[in-house]
């Protein structure tokens, strides 16, 4: 089974089994696995911009993809605090994540200023090259 297949499968599972926050916990005594789709609650939704002045298209989200294969870290190495939170406004060039592949660590930075709409991976996940990591809605 391919990584993308797993992703699709989990997506379906969450639709069926997920709680209100879109999360499922699986535990078998020895291990506990939490699967969650990170919802874009803090980000402006398409609805929010509709209305009298809402005829223009909603701002398009930018998907930030993995620049390398490796293990993703969403936390600051020293403080252990999340690098970014959902709904947070980021500046262009701001560090969003790190990917470690063997001894090499690659920084994932914001290509534009904007608001973090979605985080598509969990801290510690293995990610393929080009895998979608986060979505940001660029500031207009």
């Amino acid at each position, binding site marked *: 089974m*391919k*990584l993308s297949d797993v992703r699709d499968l989990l997506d379906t599972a969450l639709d069926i089994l997920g709680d209100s926050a879109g999360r499922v916990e699986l535990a078998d005594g020895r291990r506990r696995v939490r699967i969650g789709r990170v919802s874009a609650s803090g980000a402006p939704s398409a609805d929010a911009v509709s209305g009298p002045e809402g005829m223009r298209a909603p701002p398009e989200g930018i998907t930030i993809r993995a620049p390398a294969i490796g*293990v993703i870290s969403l936390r600051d190495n020293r403080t252990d605090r999340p690098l970014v939170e959902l709904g947070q406004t980021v500046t262009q060039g701001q560090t969003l994540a790190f990917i470690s592949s*063997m001894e*090499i660590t690659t920084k994932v930075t914001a290509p534009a200023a904007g608001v973090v709409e979605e985080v598509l991976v969990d801290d510690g996940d293995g990610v*393929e090259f080009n895998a979608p990591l986060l979505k940001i809605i660029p500031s207009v």
Partner: protein
Amino acid sequence: MFNKILIANRGEIALRVIRACQELGVSTVAVHSTADADTVPVSVADESVCIGPPQVTKSYLNMHAILTAAKLTGAEAIHPGYGFLAENETFARLVRNSGLVFIGPSADHIARMGQKAEARKTMKEAGLPILPGSADMVKDGDEAKRIAADIGYPVLLKAAYGGGGRGMRVVAKEEDLGPAFAQAAAEAMNAFGDGSLYLEKFIERPHHIEIQILADQRGGVVHLGERECSIQRRHQKLIEESPSPFLARDRALQICETVRQAIARIGYEGAGTVELIVDENRRFYFMEMNTRLQVEHPITEEITGIDIVKEQIRIASGQPLRFRQDDVTFRGHSIECRALAEDATLDFRPCTGTIQNLHFGLGPGIRVETHIYSGYQIPATYDSLLAKFISWGLTRAESISRMRRAIRETVIEGLPTTLPWHSQVLVEPDFVRGTYTTHYVAEHRRLQDPAPATGAGSGS
């Protein structure tokens, strides 16, 4: 046996290795560039991991990305296929230092065989004849004459830093050597800024013949016969066959046995191929050793019945060879035609395009190794191999007739391929008689002429 193997390659050879793993009950991880996401090996493998963008340096040559993929998927061993990292000593070492198994020989053997001079020295010591010549650069015409007198005419003068025929002279007799030396040195100086020359015995009608070897970790070494690979252009093989039509069986087995013993002496492990140059008198000289699977390995599989890729994996997992030399039998004759995305009428210019319509002529004695499918877009980034047609027959004539028939039935639309050229070779008298040398492609340029309207695919 391993539980999971990562295949660090693409195209037909990735598919070939995945199939071998499946037959052994081993899980597979296909790694791929973004350009190769929709390819057959990726879809057939148990798992697949994208390791980088289309450029090979950032994907298929990206050692760290490949090792990371192996770590993330829990693969225990890496099969490098051919090309890319297959003969990269650093990669072999990195894989082993990461606690994984590199399916191939030791990094030391890769390193030693990767250096031409070192390889020849090693194999000479192990008992293989080396093409006679100056061990080093030749000082002047007088030294050239002394060496030439020793090894016999004709001799070849070669620019030490050259290529493409410049600074190169064939000399047939002693009185011509002085002037030729001066000319070649001047030409080399002009072209490469250095007039240094080597001298070696000139083989007028050379054959490129190679010996397939399998060696386990416990000293077991067998040869699987020879392959005649003289039909090449720009050092790329276009047609290979086994056995060689040029060698009588006893002479071929004598050469194979000599090579087998030499390989046993150097403590080699895994599959490997010893490339020889064979002259008009069936004398052979070691040229180089390929420490990996060859593109043309299937023809040897067809005549011996031995699955070389599975044997590679078994050897790497520590198993001894399950057969000795006496157990290896040879049956019939096998030919490979490499269908390349190249236009033979334009001097084998590489082409790209999308496979529009695809139908392979199959049937008895025909094996096709390919990763292409109808709708597949040939990327310009990678090599031009579309499919390998492998025919087998009880005799060479049957093998040829089956190949003709299979190619005639085959349809590959959407871009030019070398198949029309192959079809012409398969009815060309020198090929049919089996009397050809490495000069074949150059001596039969007319086969590259645009085919008549009746279709080059017609084998009759």
